């Protein structure tokens, strides 16, 4: 299963365990958009994202936009190396405003 959803302290935690690319974007968008209407805080766990392209990035941008439109809190957690690389490259870490923890088991870039 590419997306795992769990709940903890009233926060919906969504773990994406797949690439976030143009091949997966449509399906991921359909799955994720459901939670935007729940009214609960969302946490996206990106630890399992081994590859991300512009489509994946756009999806995150869209999620952020939609969350604020619906007035729910959305945070990205446990960024994988692939995700951080993209966010850094495009100078977007600040835009999402989530603390990025660099994991020790990433490959030396």
């Amino acid at each position, binding site marked *: 299963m590419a997306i795992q959803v769990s709940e903890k302290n009233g926060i919906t935690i969504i773990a994406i365990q797949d690439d976030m690319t*143009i091949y997966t*974007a*449509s399906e*991921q*968008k359909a799955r994720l*958009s459901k939670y935007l209407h729940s009214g609960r805080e969302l946490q996206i766990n990106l630890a399992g994202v081994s590859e991300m*392209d*512009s*489509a994946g*990035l*756009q*999806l995150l*941008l*869209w999620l952020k*936009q*939609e969350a604020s*439109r619906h007035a729910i809190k959305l945070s990205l957690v446990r960024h994988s190396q692939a995700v951080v690389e*993209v966010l850094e*490259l*495009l*100078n*977007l870490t600040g*835009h999402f405003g989530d603390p990025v923890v660099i994991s020790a088991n990433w490959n030396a870039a």
Partner: protein
Amino acid sequence: MSELDAAIQTFVQEADELLAEMELALLGLEDNPDDSESINSVFRAMHTIKGSSGLFGFDSIVAFAHEAETVLDQVRRGQRVIDGTLISTLLNCKDHTSKLIEHCLTEAEQELSQELKLTGESLIKQLGGATTKQESMPVEADSKRGSSETSETEGDTNGNDWVILLEFGPDALRNGMDPLSFIRYLKTLGDIVDILTSAPDLPIGEAMDPESCYLHFKIVFRGNTDKQGIESVFEFAEDDCEIRIIPPHSQIEHYLSLLAEPSDEDDAQVERLGEMLINIGALTPKEVAKALQRQSEDKAESPEQAKPIGEILVEQQSAEQPVVEQALKKQQSVKQKIAAEANYIRVDSEKLGKLINLVGELVISGAAMRMMVDRHGLSDVEEVAVSMNDLVSEIRDTALELRMVAIGETFSRFRRVVRDVSNELNKQIELKITGGETELDKTVVEKINDPLTHLIRNSLDHGIEMPEQRRAAGKPEQGTVHLNAYHDSGHIVIQIADDGAGLNDEKIRTKAIANGLITADQVLTKQEVFDLIFEAGLSTKDEASNLSGRGVGMDVVRRNIEALRGSVSLDSEPGQGTTVTINLPLTLAIIDGFMVEAEQECYIIPLSMVEECVEMSPEECEFDEIQHYVNLRGEVMPYLRLGDYFNNRKQHSNIHRESMVVVRFGQTKVGFVVDKLHGEHQTVIKPLGKVFEQLKGISGATVLGSGDVALILDVQGLVQFATRDKSRASIGLAG
């Protein structure tokens, strides 16, 4: 001559001119190092020579000129200061380039000689350039090099950052064109200083298509590349991305400076605005194509409102307003330049010579016709003949004028000589030039160069003293050599004056006596003593040092000048300096003459030297037959009977009335007594054969309309003869 040979001929001529210009400019820079005009002219010389050499495959020239050009480019941009050392090096570079050109012409197949190679390498080292083998650097590479230099030197200012605006279209991702890939690649070319990612059109809610691309980027980029280089990063996305590249401030300045550069003379042509901007790297061909397309679309919509291409380029932010304005200005100036150049044509001087010869024949025919008209008393033809005669003289004057050139260029060449020699001798010498605009026949100019060089070197070597000596003598340390030229009664006078030590006439006299040129009891005027300097006997090296070296080759100088129907004289004041005066005819081909007759022979006196003609009546002139003086209305002058002089006739009958022609040479007036005055006569000079070379008093001959030959008088020689005769006579009288 094949077309290529002809082209090479043009190249050589052009290169000569450019190098001469370069030298002048360099010397000018010595006094005025900030003169951008001169810097540009030096740069242009190297730049143009490099460019044309490349066309002919003269790689050695290209490689060398490239190094010099690079340095000059830095000077031009103010990145390098031009000082005496650099000027000296560049002067040597100029010489070296001449040698390279010569090498390419004569032995292009062969390798450069070791000497040339070494000189080249050492010059490049002195220039501070690389000794690497940059065989032929294409011109484009220069602009790249230029931009990279600026970004290296001023890398820490924001003035060097490119701004790249990217707006990806919806299909980019579906086409496999991921913006991330391009940005990652861009990063390998330089630094992404800042990047702003946005998706302003990202749809709200379900309308967002995850496979469409909504991303826009604004990238601040710093790297050693040009506009084209940046554009090519995104070339595969050309259908899926709007791209605008805004050059850094320094680049804009770079473009402006490139546009400010004068275009090479030969390839001066009106470039289209777009082409011009592409050539300097301010625009990429794609940007121009886009603007042109928009223009044609606009035109199709409403022909009146179509905007000029420059405006469109600015609007679509492809080019900056000042750059476009500068380019338009340049386009305008090139147009004007081409229009101005169209006013000049280069003519083979041989063709010109032929024309002048023909005009000469025409003049003779004209004279013949007039004579016939006179002889047959054809009064009705006379008017026509007169007006045709006027036209012929006008044609003659115009044809001669074609060959007239200002002497200034010849004079200017000596700046280099003066500079080099004074450095070599540790003297401080300034060369003053006046009268450079004075014109004379090109053939005369060419031949006067050697004698002038000789005379100037003499002034430098022996005339001007060392600074200490000058100081001791109470003169300024810097000596002056003054070159002057002016017109004087149909002659051109060239003077070389120095404020050096001057000549001691006693010493010369002593030497001349020792050499048997004169006898100890001979009384000579100061002028006559100085004239001895031009005698061959006084011209050996040993004596040269004793006589401040003035004697060296002075006889050769005089021979050369006399061969031009000119004369040379010298005046000197010990401690004050020396002045050498050269008198030259303006042209060697045709003169306005005054024809006289003596003993049934016709003679021509150059009209410019005729002061007046007098009927010999006792009231007006009084002859002193013993001393050969004539007193003309109170003015005393020597006279010469032409009939006596040329026929060695000692007695003359007074059967017919005589006339006198007063001629002037310099300050001296002499009367020529003749039998008949024929009046003005256009004279085409035919040089006398070798046999007559020794003939005194004759400078040439001309064919009269009747087919007879008339001799052209060497007035100068005759004047000298008459005055000498007079002084001898007076000596005789005194003794």
